[in-house]
């Protein structure tokens, strides 16, 4: 089943398009990294996914339904600043979740907070930033939605809290099999946990697909300046010095050119290559496996 599907999705604020012509299909069960520079449209895409904003053009579907009203039970959201009511106790915050969500798993939430050593009687305002993040994420996980959307879940957390938040989230994913969409502008911290990538920049989706597949398809070619290696490939970005050219390419077949060295790339390098080359409109972004099969 498709967890998230966007067709011709666009969002305009005033006369500026925050997102334009977004087509996406994300299969169920993935842990999706939504990356891109600041102001690229990550938060807008997330807000559209959880029904906080309505699209200007096109449609968005979460598990086949638009994310409004009753369908909101299929998607949980943790906003970047992890908003909670500061005057509530932790127990009251869980009660809020129970009252407002038909499938809320109160026992699991209590167990999780107990493990983390967060007392139910504490007021939210008395908690540390890391604890608040944990409560907000626990609340969203306990909703038992099929898709959980987290906007920069690790921002403003110290390294230990980052580790604990990520660990807790992955444990919940293992228990429930839910699909996770999380954003960050630091790719390195998503590398280990995510298996799917969406790169947005300048309001459009530049790369989308399974991370393994993306890494597998891209290579760095280094060779003498003024020449081009023979073989089927698309250039994503290139840098040339006086003597040597460095090309980031998407491979369509093997390259056999003795003058050129072919190097494997880390995900971060591929993403950076695309970010640098975001105005190169002649470069088609790789499409996701699902849609490619149909085409």
């Amino acid at each position, binding site marked *: 089943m498709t967890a998230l599907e966007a067709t011709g999705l666009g969002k305009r604020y005033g006369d500026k398009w925050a997102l334009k012509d977004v087509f996406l299909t994300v299969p169920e069960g993935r842990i999706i990294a939504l990356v891109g520079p600041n102001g690229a449209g990550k938060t807008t895409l997330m*807000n559209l996914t*959880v*029904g*906080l*904003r*309505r699209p200007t053009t096109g449609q968005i579907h979460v598990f086949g339904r638009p994310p*409004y*009203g*009753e369908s*909101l*039970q299929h*998607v*949980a*959201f943790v*906003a970047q*600043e992890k*908003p*909670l*009511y*500061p*005057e*509530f106790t932790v127990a*009251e915050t869980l*009660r*809020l*979740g129970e*009252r*407002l*969500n*038909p*499938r809320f798993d109160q026992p699991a939430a209590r167990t999780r907070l107990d493990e983390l050593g967060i007392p139910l009687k504490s007021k939210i305002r008395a908690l540390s930033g890391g604890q608040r993040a944990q409560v*907000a994420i626990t609340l969203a996980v306990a*909703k038992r939605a099929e898709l959980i959307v987290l906007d920069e879940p690790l921002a403003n957390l110290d390294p230990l809290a980052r580790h604990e938040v990520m660990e807790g989230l992955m444990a919940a994913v293992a228990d429930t099999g839910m699909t996770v969409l999380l954003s960050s502008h630091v790719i390195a911290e998503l590398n280990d946990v995510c298996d799917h990538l969406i790169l947005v920049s300048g309001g459009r989706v530049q790369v989308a697909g399974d991370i393994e597949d993306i890494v597998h398809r891209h290579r760095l070619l280094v060779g003498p300046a003024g020449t081009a290696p023979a073989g089927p490939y698309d250039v994503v970005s290139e840098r040339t010095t006086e003597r040597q050219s460095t090309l980031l390419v998407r491979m369509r077949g093997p390259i056999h050119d003795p003058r050129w060295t072919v190097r494997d790339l880390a995900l971060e390098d591929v993403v950076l290559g695309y970010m640098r080359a975001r105005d190169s409109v002649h470069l088609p972004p790789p499409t996701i496996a699902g849609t490619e099969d149909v085409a």
Partner: protein
Amino acid sequence: MTWLAFRQHRVRMVTMALIVALWAGLAAVEHGFPGLRGISAGLFPYIPLVLGVFLGAPLVSREFERGTHQLAWTQSITRSRWFLPQTLVALALAVLTTAGTSALAWWSLGGLPWKREVNDTLYVLTGALPYAWAVFAVAIGVAWSAITRRTTVAMGASFFGVAATQLIAEGLRNRADRELDWPLTALQSAEAGVLTALAALLGVAAWWCTTRRDPA
């Protein structure tokens, strides 16, 4: 969501109870010293200002200011089902506060004869009229709250909105009293009806801004 609305109004419930308690103290003093009679009745028209500013104006904007709309509106309920209990609890609280303060003001007058005049303090203290003002004040507060999304701005706007409406209403009721040969109760009912209709319009505007507009 009703639970959430009650929980979020807890502090405001205590505040309103305090106002009624203060009012009771004032009324008791007036009752004991008949020379002071009329103070609480004279102050009563300020009650709607308090209701608009403290019950209406924070209702939606406080969520925006704290970012908690992103929490409240992404649970498994529609925004309408979030908005209606919040507004109804605020209205109920306003009506209860009005009931308490108007009854106390009435009692403090201790059987002072009503002159049955449109300018008498008792005109706005009797019948459905005080409740209509309470409902209108909360509605104008919630409407400004949902439109401006800023509590301080909404508080100021609803204060002046209620005050201006009171001035206009006073002028209109005096004129109607002079020109129409209506009994005073009919005049009160007409005023209450107009206020309730305005409140309904403001309520719809607030609902529309909350449920249909994108968050900032």
